[in-house]
């Protein structure tokens, strides 16, 4: 599992997560712990996640609330130091850059866009200063006129106008604010953008504008994206590769079209089945059972076993390891490995589901 297998693409990866882990200490305060004889509690927000993002491509992470997507995002731009494993950017282990000075040249090349475009923009700054901030911080340009020209270019790049630079964030709609965040993120000429739910706070028509813009920018500037969302349709639209997370683990990843067409992991299948059907085909689905358990106290073995229609004793006892799929992705599931997740078995689960509550 530690080794990173090459992606089906010929390009070398720009970003690689190798057995990446982030554990948070969520123990009660020391005194309470001693008095009540409680052990330390570790929350394994990210637990041994490996994937690679080829240059110029989009790798998306999906999964339900609390599965660790944002934590991976923060690890990927070096905002968190991993508890274990590595985040390798263009051949450099981010954790090895332990001084600000060592980090700076790499930091310029990775930027992040957040879900809430309002919270992430300083309301007292004019837009032009917000966008110019990374240019000044990284000392990319010093002359005021050059900075102004560059800010104007960036605003036009995100389909705003140079004149918008005079305004304050509150004068813009949600979608326009997200454009401003994107302009700011692009100001340092990054190669890699981590986008954490960039459209989740937006209406669908505005989301479409932002997704179109992101695709255009990727083409124009050759950007590499790590895209995070819980919306599978958005992920289908934007991604080249998709990884599915469940309680801190990457349970399956692969090329986007094949993952959606032939999902392997029972959790991936369940998620795909839960998408409301806009096409109104009246298809049958694997019944969704139960809810995501607490990440503080995840189920043993395969975290998904209490909700899985294919679980058996081995699933409860043993953590499934990654196995490579014929078309290049990876999956962590005993049933897939044992070859017992046949069409017939899945059909039977469907049949049983129709009569179950």
């Amino acid at each position, binding site marked *: 599992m530690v080794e990173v297998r090459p992606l089906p693409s010929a390009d070398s990866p720009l970003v690689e997560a190798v057995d990446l882990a982030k554990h948070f200490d969520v123990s009660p305060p020391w005194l309470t712990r001693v008095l009540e004889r409680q052990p330390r509690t570790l929350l394994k927000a990210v637990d041994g996640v490996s994937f690679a993002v080829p240059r110029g491509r989009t790798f998306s992470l999906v999964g339900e609330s609390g599965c660790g997507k944002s934590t991976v995002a923060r690890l990927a731009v070096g905002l968190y130091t991993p508890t274990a494993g590595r985040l390798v950017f263009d051949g450099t282990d981010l954790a090895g850059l332990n001084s600000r000075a060592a980090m700076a040249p790499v930091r310029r090349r990775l930027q992040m866009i957040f879900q809430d475009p309002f919270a992430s923009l300083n309301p007292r700054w004019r837009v032009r200063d917000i966008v110019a901030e990374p240019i000044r911080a990284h000392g990319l340009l010093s002359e005021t006129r050059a900075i102004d020209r560059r800010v104007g270019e960036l605003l036009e790049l995100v389909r705003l106008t140079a004149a918008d630079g005079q305004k304050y964030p509150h004068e813009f709609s949600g979608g326009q604010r997200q454009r401003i965040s994107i302009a700011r993120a692009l100001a340092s000429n990054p190669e890699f953008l981590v986008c954490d739910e960039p459209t989740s706070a937006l*209406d*669908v028509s505005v989301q*479409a504008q932002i*997704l179109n813009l992101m695709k255009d920018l990727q083409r124009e500037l050759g950007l590499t994206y790590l895209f995070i969302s819980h919306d*599978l*349709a*958005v992920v289908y639209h934007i991604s080249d590769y998709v990884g599915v997370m469940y309680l801190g683990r990457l349970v399956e990843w692969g090329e986007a079209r094949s993952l959606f067409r032939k999902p392997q992991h029972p959790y991936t299948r369940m998620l795909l089945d839960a998408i409301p059907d*806009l*096409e109104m085909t009246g298809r049958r689905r694997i019944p969704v059972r139960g809810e995501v358990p607490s990440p503080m106290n995840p189920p043993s073995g395969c975290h998904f076993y209490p909700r899985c229609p294919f679980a058996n004793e081995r699933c409860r006892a043993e953590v499934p390891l990654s196995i490579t799929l014929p078309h290049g992705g990876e999956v962590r599931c005993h049933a897939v490995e044992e070859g017992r997740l046949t069409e017939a078995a899945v059909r039977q689960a469907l049949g049983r589901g129709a009569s179950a509550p």
Partner: protein
Amino acid sequence: MSSAVKTPLLQVRNLRVEFPTRRGVLTAVDDLSFDIHEGEVLGVVGESGAGKSMTGTAVIGLLEPPGRIAGGEVLLRGRRIDNLPYEELRRIRGKEIGMIFQDPLTSLNPLYTVGRQLVETIRTHSDLSEGRAKARAVELLAEVGIPAPERRVNQYPHQFSGGMRQRVVIALALCANPRLVIADEPTTALDVSIQAQIISLLKRLCSEHGAAVMLITHDMGVIAETADRVAVMYAGRLAEIGPVKDVVKHARHPYTHGLMGSIPIVGQDLDRLTQIDGSMPRLSEIPPGCPFHPRCPRVFEPCDQERPDPIPVENSEVACWLYDDKRSGGGGHG
């Protein structure tokens, strides 16, 4: 489908909701009319700020001041309810109209057990004894899929997960057997895998109890799977209303058309999504004429001057000049 002769369960006629503010009166819902028939699920969709929640809260008389109904009327089974005294309206709420909000915690009192809240609501609207009401509460919890209901009935809301709480709220909304349930974004706060469970539960239970549903959401997928008819709102007004298949698959109003195209769909390989440029105007900046005209790809002469009223087209109504034969020469139908 319900026949035209039968009085609709709910009739909303020319509803207008206003907010007096320092800078003038804002109109959040403007001349909105629609019906909901017995047992029907009406979806109400639209972007943030379109006036969906205002419509829902106006119908049940829960508008928060300074918001107020400034015109029109709301009729339940042919009887006006928008001008009833507070106490009478309160009785109708719960008994005849149940409510489910986005955040289950707005409907649940954290200080009382789930059972106590159910029993109280059941007893307010029926003459069941304490013991019978408690038994009914357990039954309801079982109906909404809460495991071990005999035990859970004595627990407090915080002891339930988000999805389980929303199940409790559904039980609470249905416990007096209302004729109509208004559900405002009932699954938006929940996880994807839970959303599907809650929506199918809501749909199944309402049809078993014979309750009609006004389902407010911005999720077209949920509407496509759940609703019989859909009303699309834009800037406080009705853009289009009609059978779900017509609206989702053959949108007539240019706004609905753009909205549907902007939704990504799994399995649909598009390089770009349909894009409606701009965004919905703020209430203080709604343009004259058709409120959609600055963004409309099909805008023509009358649009920036005259406001289109809903025009009947087959089983739908569409507020767009393209469907007025005298204006467009029948261009909208093509």
